């Protein structure tokens, strides 16, 4: 369990509390241990830590003042959105504050003519599309956590969703950011146009896991809601056949709006959870959504149907209404909680692999699962090769935790070995620091460090996450013990 850090001098804490009270109302500072509990982890609950303080500012000015105070007192700052992250990215630092941005939750403006929305970082992903709906527009990236996750968190993780194959990731759908540097200096990155002068500073910022700057405002691109979207679901009696069907669709020149694969255990779990009508006996299930004008959708549905039949689909079902389309997606979108019901805990992995390797990789995962004696369900963003194996285990059993961790690490290394990467959308955070060297050389990791230092020379923003600090690790006083290892929930 959590062991509060004693190394932070009580004096710093007292000074911090006093300074912060001068700029924040009392209810914006969370001081009590029990009240801090909800902030001790993100959705990867194995990693827990308590901060010095949690602060919940309600204006950009307050955020700026908080940063200035922390800078003056050399206190690390961990930005936090909704805490739905899956890599311990917003887990607190024992000597730092949690900078919760949830109260900055205003949709500032929707420009229906330019097709953009200007929002604060604490706005939830889904609420942007809900607000844009009145104008016939929506925000395309749709992580399964979209009801809860914040757009600020999406920026920090470069989040994806089931519609990213066609519409891109967060990085493809953001026009500009207002950010505060670690010292509280404001900066505008990007603009209303489609590129910026000088360096493309949006590129390093998006996906930087709160390590480079605090995002205080975001302008996103909105797209017209397609006239029609339909889902075609197909069951297969082997993963191989389903994998081939994916290649056939792409080969036919069709870029579906979404293309998802689930394996047998995931299908059964999702079916038991939402009763979407998935074929419980299938070895693999594909969900393929096509969208566009009415004519386009009809043409593509017919073609995909043919391709699925030719690839040996054992069942095929096409959504006949919006309700049915949503039902078919609901199973996929609630796959994590559905699988979560099968065991006390699950550990979600996030490697990306070349699509063509899916059958091989799933075979290897099954083999490793047998070796470790742990069950695993797989959901796969098949269109873009992003694989989420969900390892089932019991966090009450230290031996199970160790096995799950080792198994997970092997899956990530396998992803790299077949030409992929350790994380497609969930980020490195604290969790995957240990696997960074399997994807990057020491020189590459040092280059990341140099970039970090260009934005944050004292390493005060979310220190100890995202990139392993090689050069500075002796100098830096408060890196959590044992990078890349679970150090919470073990007792």
């Amino acid at each position: 369990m959590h062991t509060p850090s004693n190394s932070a001098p009580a004096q710093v804490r007292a000074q911090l509390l006093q300074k912060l009270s001068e700029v924040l109302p009392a209810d914006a500072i969370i001081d009590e241990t029990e009240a801090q509990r909800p902030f001790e982890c993100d959705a990867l609950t194995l990693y827990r830590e308590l901060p010095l303080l949690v602060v919940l500012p309600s204006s950009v000015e307050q955020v700026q003042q908080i940063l200035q105070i922390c800078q003056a007192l050399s206190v690390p700052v961990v930005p936090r959105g909704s805490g739905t992250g899956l890599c311990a990215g917003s887990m607190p630092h024992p000597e730092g504050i949690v900078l919760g941005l949830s109260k900055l939750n205003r949709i500032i403006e929707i420009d229906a003519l330019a097709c953009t929305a200007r929002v604060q970082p604490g706005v939830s992903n889904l609420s942007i599309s809900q607000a844009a709906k009145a104008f016939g527009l929506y925000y395309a990236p749709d992580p399964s956590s979209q009801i809860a996750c914040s757009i600020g968190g999406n920026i920090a993780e470069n989040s994806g969703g089931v519609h990213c194959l066609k519409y891109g990731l967060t990085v493809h759908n953001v026009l500009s950011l207002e950010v505060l540097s670690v010292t509280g200096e404001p900066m505008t990155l990007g603009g209303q146009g489609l590129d910026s002068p000088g360096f493309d500073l949006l590129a390093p910022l998006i996906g930087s896991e709160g390590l480079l700057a605090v995002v205080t405002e975001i302008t996103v691109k909105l797209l017209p809601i397609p006239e029609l979207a339909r889902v075609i679901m197909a069951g297969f009696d082997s993963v191989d056949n389903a994998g081939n069907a994916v290649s056939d669709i792409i080969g036919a020149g069709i870029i579906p709006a979404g293309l998802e694969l689930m394996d047998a255990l995931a299908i059964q779990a999702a079916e038991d959870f939402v009763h979407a009508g998935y074929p419980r006996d299938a070895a693999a299930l594909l969900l393929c959504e096509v969208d566009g004008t009415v004519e386009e959708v009809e043409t593509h549905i017919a073609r995909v149907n043919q391709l699925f039949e030719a690839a040996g689909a054992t069942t095929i079902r096409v959504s006949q209404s919006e309700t049915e389309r949503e039902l078919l997606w609901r199973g996929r979108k609630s796959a994590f909680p559905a699988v979560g019901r099968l065991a006390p805990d699950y550990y979600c992995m996030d490697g990306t692999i070349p699509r063509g390797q899916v059958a091989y990789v799933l075979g290897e995962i099954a083999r490793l699962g047998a070796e470790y004696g742990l069950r695993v369900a797989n959901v796969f963003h098949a269109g873009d090769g992003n694989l989420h194996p969900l390892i089932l285990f019991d966090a009450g059993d230290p031996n199970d935790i160790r096995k799950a961790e080792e198994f997970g690490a092997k899956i990530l290394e396998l992803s790299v070995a077949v030409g992929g990467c350790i994380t497609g959308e969930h980020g490195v955070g604290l969790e995957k620091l240990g696997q960074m060297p399997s994807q990057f050389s020491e020189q590459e990791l040092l280059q990341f460090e140099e970039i970090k230092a260009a934005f944050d020379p004292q390493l005060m923003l979310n220190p100890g996450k995202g990139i392993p600090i090689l050069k500075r690790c002796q100098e830096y006083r408060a890196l959590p013990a044992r990078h890349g290892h679970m150090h919470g929930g073990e007792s």
Partner: protein
Amino acid sequence: MSDRGAEIVDTVAQALASKTPLSINGGGSKTNILGRSVSSDEFQTLELGQHSGIIDYHPAELVLTARAGTPLTEINAALANEEQMLAFEPPTFGGRATLGGTLACNMSGPARPWSGSVRDMVLGVQLVNGKAELLNFGGQVMKNVAGYDVSRLQAGALGTLGVITQVSLKVLPLAEHSVTLVYEVDAQQALKIMNERRSAAKPLNAACWVQGFLYLRLSGAQPAVTQTAKVWGGEEMPNADEFWQKIREFEHPFFTSDHALWRFSQGPTAAVQSEFGDILLDWGGAQRWLRGEQQRDDLVKSAEDAGGHVGLYRGGDRTGEVNHPVNTVQKALHQRLKHALDPAGIFNPGRLYSWM
């Protein structure tokens, strides 16, 4: 087609040791555009044209990897064989444009607002940094969030952050069918139509106004294109590919004078800046080209009012600043980032800004 990776690393190492600035050159197609012209006597030229060839191409994965010096024409031909394309429609400059230069200059054609830019399509790069280290960032898969996005950071940096030696890109299937509709309207009306149609869920994928005519290109599944063309009206343009080709290659008569050429990249809805003279609207109004001698300060103000930036793309005085100014906070960050990747300042010094 050859691998000159080792030589490139050597050249950078020597330049680093002797503090010789390097002028990085792909096919030479963009030497006199976009960046400042910097005196070449003390510079050594690092040629990438020989470091060429497609390394990997998997049509079913929608991924292509090629050395930086590979001509775009070679890539386009390989893709066309598989009925695929570079969706961002970069200019090939008569065959001289290379993949590395296209990324460094962030060059994308008419489809850019709808199909994304070269920056959007980059999946990974290999580069030599200013310490003469050969590094790989990103990868050959669609999604990769490990580490900072150094690949996309190269877009528009004009080679000042490293020598790009290899690029992996997402490629897309060729559109099944395209139709271009033409309307005879003035610039204001054209902008109005572009703005209205942006939010229509139709397969629009290029919108350009030049010299009294608006051109809208529909691209996608045949029935969707045909049906939309019927609803939108306008005249269907024969040989439309030739028109778009000329726009993207700067071969349209609008571009063929020796006038200075300015590029605005800005919010698409801002009023047409007709006070400055001849203008061409592309990217549905988000990219605007302006010809002739101009007061740079006036253009800078106009671009900023429209939420964007302006640069002297071609011609004019290229010894002063040609790119849009950045404020002091941004300038300091640019310098620190430059230092992080090129500590000795040997890559294309002064090309992007005089102070870097």
